[in-house]
């Protein structure tokens, strides 16, 4: 069975090479740095930029808050449970 697996994997590698040889049309290859903006380009982009960064910040904060809230709930449950258990044991000792 392992021989078959090795053969299959070799087949996959050969196919992968074939796939890799396929040349798609080119996209942009690298970012070209510039030290100043072409005129009239700034304002329309700014809201998008700000929205993007704001979303990242807010997402992180919301997630942290969500984890913290769930943690609180679990810890409250634990305390309640521990109370019940120690209270229960006291009663059964009577």
């Amino acid at each position: 069975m392992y021989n078959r697996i090795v053969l299959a994997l070799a087949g996959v590698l050969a196919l992968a090479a074939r796939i890799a040889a396929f040349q798609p049309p080119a996209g942009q290859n690298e970012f070209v740095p510039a030290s100043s903006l072409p005129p009239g380009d700034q304002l329309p982009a700014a809201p998008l930029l700000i929205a993007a960064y704001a979303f990242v910040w807010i997402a992180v904060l919301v997630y942290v808050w969500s984890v913290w809230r769930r943690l609180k709930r679990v810890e409250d449950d634990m305390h309640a449970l521990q109370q019940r258990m120690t209270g229960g044991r006291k009663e059964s000792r009577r």
Partner: protein
Amino acid sequence: MKKAFVPLTIVVAAMFAYAPVLIARADYEATMGLVQKIFYFHVPSWFVMFTAVFICGGASALYLAKGDPRFDRVAASAGEIAVVFGLMGLVTGPLWGRKAWGVWWQWDARLTMALLVELIFVGYLIVRKYGGPGSEKLGAAMAIFGTANVPFVYVSVNIWRTIHPKTTVVPTLAATMAIPFWYSVLAFMLLFTLLMTLRLGLERQRAALDELYLAEDDDV
């Protein structure tokens, strides 16, 4: 891990506070202008997402192989974080694309396949929550399959027609852009570590609570 928590939080907060300064000082990109600066948060989000995806897949595989619940806890935490950072990438991408390509969504290959990986891991979270008993194993299989799909995702960039900047962009970045970029990557990776620690803590407490419930049943 626990002792490093507070210093790590401070470092991450400081790095993120300083990041906008670095990013603002970076050069503009010649054709895309200001909006390209979304790149400094967009790409690190994907780095974190795919790191989380591979950790989730690896931990799931180990969980299925060894049965140790600690692996399952790591997988659950990583899966959730993957979805959060994937969402960040999927929102910042179209915001960038709106300016650079003119439309919000172009069915560009890479964003589309990233959406797919995101959907797979949302499915993972749904299975874990609503799958009923034994859903840890179902989720683990789902995570493994999702992670195995990632190479197909990556290959598709080179096969489909695409106007997405190619994968060769990052290695060829000029120094003025490379520094804020890798700084952002580091900041995001540290953030990821922080969030993993936090989330794992939650999983551990949940496991402890389950133990307590079982102990209570035994007592009664």
